């Protein structure tokens, strides 16, 4: 397990665990050592020190006893003697108490192996001397009771004095041994304390150094990679996407670095993709623009062709319309010529009967000629009307954008559609009160002609075309409804698209509705269609009055 691969939290826990372990070890060690020191101090305080005190008490007690004994020699009066003997008795009790205490302490210390043989030997000697002194004391008191005062004093000062001195010397020896042992124990305790203090100091120093090292390592493990990441992020922010972070390890920062690298790679790829796509898009745009130009050109050409076709159709219609009256005029001219021939024949005839007959004939011929002239006039009028309509339709002689009555345009278109339409279709006009509107009349007429042609085409045999106009608010409405075959619903949405082809027996005006739509749009108007298959179609044009 690599240290680098640990999670950040675990790294910290590990670091602090090491610190805590070292500190705990130091503490446990010092506590143990303190216990040792305590034991060594206890040795002194509970062994040698109490014994030393007891020995000191024994010393004081025995000295006091001996002084009392010396005083006893010179005792006068029974009361004083009695007091002294009681005091001495109490001193003996005290000394015995102390000796008992010493014995107890001795046994307790011996159980802990803290009682030296030397001290034991000295104590035995002390005890023996004490017994000896007590023997002598008994003898002394015996002599005193017997009234042998001088012998008693001699005993006390002589033999008893020597024994007491010996006793005191032994007691001092005991004190010295005790002091020496106590001093040794204290020295041991101090040595242990000093060594422990040194070890604890060292451990403390080690702990501090270790803590600092661990903190430094932890900080390096965290901050150095973070700083690297920060710099890398800064580079990315400045647009340098080629940045890769070299951070090993599987901790959070290692993962972060991997994610960061993946991110920059992804960003780089995304940017490259975007650039490529932008370039491609630019090319496509260029191509599209070219196509658009070409398309517009071909559309214009198509429109032109359409116009030409419409014009041709119109011209054909107009020629047909004009042909009738012209034929009438031609026929009438022929009749007129023959009438003129008749008159020349009349004029060359001689004789009255012949003249009379000629007169009657000429009256007849004149009537024919008069009729003929009426026919010619009518035909001429008809031609004039057609020409006028044509003019009105094309508005060739007028300004393009002007105030116009749309009814005139509708009527001219109807006229141009002519007899072919009127023979099988009933035209019903429902014109409302319309103000004149500013428009391009020639273009609007084209729309009307388109819609009317469409309507008549939609009616296969016989039917009605109803033209209704009315004003609503600031708009005028023009409805052209037929009772034709209708337009299927799925084709309605693409009805005004360029190149629409209704199909059926006559394929024409493929671009008519599209052109109409464009023209109405140009007039800020709208064109809508409502159709039911088998029932008919209604186109509604809405134009603003302005």
């Amino acid at each position, binding site marked *: 397990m690599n240290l680098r691969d640990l999670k950040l939290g675990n790294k910290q826990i590990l670091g602090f665990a090491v610190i805590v372990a070292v500190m705990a070890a130091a503490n446990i060690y010092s506590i143990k050592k303190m216990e040792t020191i305590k034991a060594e101090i206890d040795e002194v305080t509970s062994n040698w020190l109490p014994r030393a005190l007891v020995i000191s008490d024994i010393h004081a007690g025995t000295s006091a006893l001996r002084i009392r004994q010396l005083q006893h020699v010179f005792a006068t009066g029974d009361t004083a003697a009695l007091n002294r*003997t009681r005091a001495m*008795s109490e001193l*003996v009790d005290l000394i015995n108490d102390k000796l008992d205490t010493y014995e107890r302490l001795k046994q307790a210390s011996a159980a802990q192996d803290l009682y030296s043989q030397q001290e034991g030997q000295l104590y035995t000697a002390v005890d*023996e001397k004490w*017994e000896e002194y007590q*023997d002598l004391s*008994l003898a002394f008191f*015996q002599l005193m*009771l017997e009234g042998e005062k001088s012998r008693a004093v001699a005993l006390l000062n002589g033999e008893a004095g020597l024994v007491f001195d010996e006793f005191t010397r032994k007691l001092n020896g005991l004190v010295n041994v005790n002091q020496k042992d106590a001093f040794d124990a204290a020295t041991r305790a101090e040595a242990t304390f000093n060594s422990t203090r040194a070890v604890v100091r060292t451990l403390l120093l080690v702990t501090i150094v270790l803590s600092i090292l661990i903190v430094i390592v932890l900080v390096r493990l965290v901050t150095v990679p973070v700083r690297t990441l920060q710099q890398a992020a800064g580079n990315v922010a400045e647009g340098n996407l080629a940045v890769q972070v070299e951070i090993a390890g599987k901790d959070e920062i290692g993962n972060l670095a991997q994610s960061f690298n993946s991110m920059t790679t992804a960003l780089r790829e995304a940017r490259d993709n975007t650039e490529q796509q932008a370039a491609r898009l630019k090319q496509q745009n260029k191509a599209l623009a070219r196509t658009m130009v070409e398309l517009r050109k071909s559309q214009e050409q198509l429109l032109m062709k359409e116009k030409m076709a419409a014009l041709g159709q119109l011209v054909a219609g107009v020629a047909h319309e004009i042909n009738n009256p012209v034929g009438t005029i031609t026929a009438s001219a022929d009749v007129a010529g023959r009438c003129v021939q008749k008159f020349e024949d009349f004029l060359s005839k001689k004789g009255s009967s012949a003249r009379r007959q000629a007169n009657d004939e000429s009256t007849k011929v004149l009537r024919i000629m008069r009729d003929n002239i009426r026919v010619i006039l009518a035909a001429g009028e008809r031609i004039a009307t057609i020409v006028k309509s044509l003019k009105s339709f094309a508005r060739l002689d007028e300004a393009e954008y002007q105030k116009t009555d749309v009814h005139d345009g509708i009527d001219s278109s109807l006229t141009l559609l002519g007899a072919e339409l009127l023979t099988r279709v009933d035209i019903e006009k429902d014109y409302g009160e319309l103000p004149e509107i500013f428009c391009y009349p020639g273009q609007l007429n084209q729309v009307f002609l388109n819609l009317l042609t469409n309507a008549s085409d939609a009616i296969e045999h016989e039917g009605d075309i109803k033209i209704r106009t009315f004003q609503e608010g600031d708009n005028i409405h023009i409805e052209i409804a037929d009772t034709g075959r209708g337009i299927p619903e799925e084709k309605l949405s693409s009805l005004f698209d360029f190149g629409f082809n209704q199909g059926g027996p006559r394929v024409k005006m493929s671009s008519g509705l599209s052109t109409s739509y464009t023209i109405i749009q140009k007039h800020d108007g709208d064109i809508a269609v409502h159709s039911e298959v088998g029932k008919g179609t209604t186109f509604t044009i809405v134009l603003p009055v302005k």
Partner: protein
Amino acid sequence: MKRVVLTFAFLLTTAAFAPAQVAVIANKSVPVDTVRKSKLLDFYTGDIRLWGNDEAVVVVDLKPRSDIKKRFYRYLGKRSSRMKSIWLKKMLSGEGDPPEALKTEEDVLHKVGNTQGAIGFLSASKVDSQQVKVLLIIPASAAQ
């Protein structure tokens, strides 16, 4: 008869074991044949001064610092120096004199044998049952 057997056995054991046993002996006039430890201590501290027959108790001590003496007092739970203190106090308070301390075990045997109500101690090997009666044998082990 019992005494003879006791003494015989006593002599045998004495011969068998190195540390001498301590025998508590009394004048034949004393009204008891055995003595318990506490009673013995009471005799030696001077707390009991009379036998059951109102005869005075005469306590005999051994003077030299001998092994027998040490063992005897240790059996009583008192070191000899402590016994001296007790006697010293009795003397100072006028309650009585310390026991007479004799120089040899033979002196003890003789003194006990010839004194009415006397009680003492000596090595078991030195007992003469013709002169005294044995009240108690302190085993060597118990004296340790």
